[in-house]
């Protein structure tokens, strides 16, 4: 074996090892995060009253008489804000992606993409600030309600934060559909909208689903903006004008006050485990759906 050949083999081996390390590290980090969150909360797990935990709306982690950890209202808060955000963000996001990818003149496309990417770069605390100072008075004024920090405010803010993610991933998915599909559909006498609806959307559905689910993930996991925009009231909402508190906002707001290794501190980590499980389930469902579609 010549020297040059040896070097090539060595380089190949090194690169392979490095790339494998990168791949493995992702797995290591995910398990690492789960491990540390779990470690902080685990010894509360056997002692927790799960019935109360999941069905009670009473969240009194610092009560002098009887401490109560009921997260039903927090779950309802997270759920309501996320659902509203998705109801707003998915149609707008997918619509914008279809426009940018299929209907927009090339010059305007570039401008729009830059602006949409700029939207994704706004820090969440700034969104929260907008929720507090712009949306709040606006909602009070428009709907004549006493307080504008509520599900509607949080939902709109979260929708605004999710739209750029949905747009850019959905647009990539549509762009990845080969042009030959478009040409074939047009050659068969389809209009542009028929082409989008009958050919491009089915062809890009895996990517579009990924876009929507990343948007959902963002909405469930977002903390700072919803903390500032939803009013922070432990309460099951009956309308979009009710203030709520989400799981994430609770963890963020109370983590600093809870004495380390107290039950209060641990229950916040249990909420962390729950959030982790929720996002895992969302991803799992997405994965199974995509597989189901593929095998059909």
């Amino acid at each position: 074996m010549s020297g040059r050949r040896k070097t090539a083999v060595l380089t190949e081996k090194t690169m392979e090892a490095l790339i494998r390390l990168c791949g493995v590290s992702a797995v290591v980090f995910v398990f690492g995060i789960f491990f540390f969150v779990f470690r902080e909360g685990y010894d509360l797990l056997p002692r927790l009253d799960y019935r109360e935990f999941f069905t009670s709306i009473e969240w009194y982690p610092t009560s002098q008489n009887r401490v109560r950890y009921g997260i039903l209202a927090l779950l309802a808060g997270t759920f309501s804000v996320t659902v509203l955000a998705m109801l707003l963000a998915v149609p707008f996001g997918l619509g914008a992606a279809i426009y940018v990818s299929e209907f927009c003149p090339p010059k305007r496309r570039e401008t729009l993409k830059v602006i949409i990417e700029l939207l994704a770069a706004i820090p969440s605390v700034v969104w929260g600030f907008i929720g507090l100072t712009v949306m709040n008075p606006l909602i009070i004024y428009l709907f004549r309600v006493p307080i504008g920090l509520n599900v509607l405010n949080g939902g709109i803010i979260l929708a605004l934060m999710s739209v750029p993610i949905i747009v850019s991933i959905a647009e990539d998915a549509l762009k990845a559909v080969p042009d030959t599909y478009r040409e074939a559909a047009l050659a068969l006498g389809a209009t542009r909208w028929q082409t989008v609806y009958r050919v491009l959307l089915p062809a890009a559905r895996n990517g579009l689903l990924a876009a929507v689910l990343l948007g959902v993930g963002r909405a469930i996991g977002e903390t700072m903006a919803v903390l500032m925009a939803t009013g922070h009231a432990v309460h099951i909402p009956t309308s979009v004008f009710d203030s709520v508190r989400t799981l994430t906002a609770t963890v963020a707001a109370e983590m600093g006050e809870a004495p380390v290794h107290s039950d209060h501190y641990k229950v916040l980590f249990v909420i962390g485990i729950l959030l982790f499980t929720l996002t895992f389930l969302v991803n799992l469902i997405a994965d199974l759906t995509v597989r189901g579609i593929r095998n059909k």
Partner: protein
Amino acid sequence: MVTAQKKIEISRLTVRFGSKTALKEVSLDVAPNEILAVIGPAQSGKTTLLKVLNRTLETSGDAVMEGTVRIDGEDIMRSRNVYDLRRKVGMVAPLPVGLPMSIYENVAFAPRQAGIEPRRELDAIVERCLRQAALWDEVKDRLDSLGSKLSGGQQQRLTIARALSHQPEILCLDEFSIAIDPVTTHRIEDVLQELRREMTILLVTNLVQQARRIADRTAFLLNGELVEVGPTGRIFSDHPEQQKTYDYVHGIFG
């Protein structure tokens, strides 16, 4: 020639993409029920010519077109309904494109767009087209499986069936044999011989022998210019009008 005998009249057609000229002053007539082969090396403008015919060229933003193209005497650039025009022209792409739907839906796509809804009518169209494309026997039991799961040759015949589904008067094939084996190629060539009774066929091909086998007339394009068009016998004889034609079909260059 009398006007009625021309299915397609192309006169002084020039197409530019930005600063690049794809077709230069091409004038060409095609008679009804004729098989016209278009041969020429890569980048000679063959595909562009087909894209002009069904006006899909205009979807690629920077294309500029001059000259006129008439189908049945009507200027296609002024045709009121571009979708009707596209249905009149069946197009088969070089690499088969099974649209992301079932075999049945692939063929029923165009009729549905045109507003044909009754299931029985669609069933009849699907069967007729798949039979014409010599695919029916192979797929009749699995019409609901995905079109993109077929083999390359089957997909190519599926695209031919699809192109026939809107009952085109002109069938354009763009190097249909790239992805398929010689046996299937011959089968499709036989199919084309059958189809010519009903329609005019434009066959763009890299295989000069294919042109020789089935075309009535052959046009030779080179760098966007029409070098020569004439009866296939003459083009492939020892004495075509142009020396370049002789060189190309005899493999001396290209």
